[in-house]
């Protein structure tokens, strides 16, 4: 017998994050204080060790050994208010009538993120037309989001935490000051990738518990991934001293595949446990598979020169990211079977529809050399939505983004450059009506099976869909980033 309880989930949903320096989707904001101060408009300039990410060809311009230490502090606010709905699980509800219910706004409670570090060492080892670098850094993004178990978002997500570290090695070469090329090999390590959401374990026919269920269960995956390879290639071209072009791309169609553990715990602890097994053996290992986007960025930079000194520059970048690779988050359970109260459900391969789309970002930024020791910078950007509104979710702010930044650098004692930047990143508000919502409650034990049209098994209010949609409502997200960096140049 299959009491299926649901174990679905999710986990798949899991998520986040990632590697190279894209700006939307899993990521948020720019890494490195100098680039962040220009809102990430840095692909043509790329004149510090963060070039390993923005455009490795930029490393060819370094004149000696240097070390970059940096960190980004961030505040990540994310609010959601589920749209008013009808409570079809209410005891007074029938197949045709149900009482209305409203939900309070919920917010991410893990707003402060103290770490987004980077460390890069670069050197040309005495080769005037070459540059090399190696380092470790965190992909810029919101590593943790926590929402209340009782909140209106709970069937989308309860919490997630993702830590992504990138190990990089780069090499670059230039031909005089005319053009350069470079490449970065990237080793992506995911020490932690956790995700949880609520699922409805009910197996009963004609049932819809779109607000709460007596068989609500927390489904959670916790995992890691030791190695995913990626690469960035780049080039720059300076046809005349005052004009420079840069192009860079993340070119490997990689996927993060975690080694994770799945657990399913009834919210009502008196219900007992959900046991997971494979081939009759207790097992809970699963794989969470997250596609990573390809990315291309193109930048043009105007340099205002006074003799050989650059007084200011303005750069316009356009970035294209193939987030359409993220059609779904996949939780591959390799045929785990969940057993709850004597009944079973084969979990199989669970896909959580995302239907993300490719994004285009436009970034404008520049530096002004106020004195020989002090530079100020600013920038702004617009980035198209990664997720169609219908698939809006609290796991990632998926709407269109706008923002701006300011920053500066101060050269001290000849060898030390301290940089600071503030960046604001705001998602344009999303208001999604229930009729347009397409994220469905996870009800893995449901008696309603494809094509979901049999009223003997499916709730008549939700015929033609797997379960009630649960992502309608309003979404507001904003992040504030403060980046600090110390660049130490050795030698003369």
């Amino acid at each position: 017998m299959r009491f299926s309880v649901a174990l679905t989930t999710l986990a798949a949903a899991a998520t986040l994050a990632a590697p190279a320096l894209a700006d939307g989707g899993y990521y948020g904001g720019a890494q490195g204080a100098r680039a962040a101060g220009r809102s990430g408009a840095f692909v043509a300039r790329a004149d510090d060790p963060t070039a390993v990410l923005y455009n490795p060809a930029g490393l060819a311009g370094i004149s000696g050994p240097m070390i970059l230490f940096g960190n980004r502090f961030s505040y990540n606010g994310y609010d959601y208010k589920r749209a008013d709905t009808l409570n079809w699980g209410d005891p007074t509800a029938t197949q045709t009538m149900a009482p209305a219910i409203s939900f309070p706004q919920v917010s991410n409670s893990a707003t402060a993120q103290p770490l987004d570090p980077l460390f890069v060492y670069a050197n040309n080892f005495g080769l005037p037309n070459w540059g090399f670098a190696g380092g470790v850094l965190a992909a810029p993004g919101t590593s943790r989001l926590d929402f209340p178990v009782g909140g209106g978002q709970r069937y989308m997500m309860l919490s997630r935490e993702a830590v992504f570290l990138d190990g990089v090695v780069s090499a670059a070469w230039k031909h005089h000051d005319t053009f350069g090329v470079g490449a970065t090999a990237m080793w992506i390590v995911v020490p932690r990738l956790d995700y949880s959401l609520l699922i409805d374990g009910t197996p009963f026919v004609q049932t819809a518990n779109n607000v709460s269920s007596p068989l609500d269960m927390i489904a959670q995956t916790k995992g890691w991934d030791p190695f995913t390879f990626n690469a960035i290639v780049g080039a720059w071209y300076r046809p005349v001293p005052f004009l420079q072009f840069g192009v860079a791309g993340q070119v490997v169609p990689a996927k993060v595949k975690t080694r994770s553990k799945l657990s399913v715990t009834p919210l009502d602890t008196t219900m007992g446990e959900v046991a997971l097994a494979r081939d009759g053996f207790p097992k809970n290992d699963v794989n969470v598979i997250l596609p990573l986007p390809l990315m291309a960025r193109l930048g043009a930079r105007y340099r205002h020169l006074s003799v050989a000194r650059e007084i200011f520059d303005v750069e316009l970048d356009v970035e294209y990211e193939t987030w359409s690779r993220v059609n779904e988050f996949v939780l591959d359970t390799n045929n785990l079977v969940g057993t709850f109260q004597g009944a079973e459900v084969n979990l199989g391969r669970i896909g959580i529809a995302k239907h993300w789309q490719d994004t285009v970002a436009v970034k404008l930024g520049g530096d002004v050399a106020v004195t020989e020791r002090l530079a100020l910078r600013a920038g702004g950007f617009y980035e198209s939505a990664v997720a169609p509104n219908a698939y809006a979710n609290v796991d990632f702010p998926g709407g269109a983004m706008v923002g701006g930044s300011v920053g500066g650098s101060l050269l001290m004692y000849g060898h030390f450059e301290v940089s600071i930047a503030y960046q604001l990143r705001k998602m344009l508000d999303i208001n999604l009506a229930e009729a347009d919502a397409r994220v469905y409650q996870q009800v893995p034990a449901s008696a309603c099976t494809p094509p979901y049209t049999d009223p003997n098994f499916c709730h008549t209010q939700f015929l033609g869909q797997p379960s009630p949609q649960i992502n309608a409502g309003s979404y507001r997200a904003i992040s504030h980033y403060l980046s600090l960096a110390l660049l130490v140049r050795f030698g003369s």
Partner: protein
Amino acid sequence: MSLPLAMLLAACGGGTKSEWPKGNVVLEGTNNYMSQATLLIPKIPTASGADLTVCWNDLMKDLLCHNIEAPSNAVDNVGFLQIPNMTQDQVRASLAVGQLDENRVKIYREHHTAAADNGCAKLSTFMLGTVLNPTTDYVEPVAGQTLTYMLLFTSGTTPGVGSKAMAFLEPMAASTVMDVAAPDACSNSVLDFHATFGAPINIPKDDNTKWHVDWSQIENDSFGNPINFAKIDMLQLGFYQNMTATQLEANFKDIEQVATKFYEVPVAPGARDADLANAFEKGTTTPFPGFTQTDGTWAVAVRCSKCQIPAPVVLSVLQLQ
């Protein structure tokens, strides 16, 4: 909650073999017994939409005709089920072979019994997240509609485990019956159960290094349902003095009660083998002394205490050599 969809004879699900067999007494499918079960579930007409008073205090014997008595065999839970689009006969037939799918149930509510109940409870106290609303959840089917209502009386709150009695409820507008007494399962002959033993399995009488019993090669339980090895938790060994295998078959429902000696070996989840040399007499610390008695029948059984089926998953008579 105990989801008694408790179906009495539900099966335990599926698993597959891996690196087994490991033992030297390897049970095959032909060694396992076969079962045939029929349920004749009493029907109780009542008022429709009424908040019935359900009583279980007069229950004396369970489906196996064993005494219902606290603490080990009392009624701890009463479940109410509404099953649409299945007739009573279909439900009965599915239950008998452990194949009633919870996906066929529309409403399930339960009442955990307590001393304060005095053996009775109102339907409106049954709950699972929300309480049962008899005016909407327990009504006479309209013309052309098929609705089956059931009460399940179980021991323990582990779902599906320990059904003691059951009844179909029939709401009728013309009825004024407001009280429901759980029908005694034994006196109503609710369960008709027959077991047929498979081929005995050979085991060396004296060489305790070869008592390693292995059931990895058996795929189905006695009802033909796939075995979920992860849920098996006990290997049992019984000696039945002065009884033949045929007599044991005839007394199958009392197979624990009629044992002269009864030994157990705990089984780790997922394991498919156990060594009888590690067995202890049930409820004691007395180790299994070996096959010292030969004036009767020895049988070995693989049990699943959390399965909805009360019968052993595997049972085979031992042929001492």
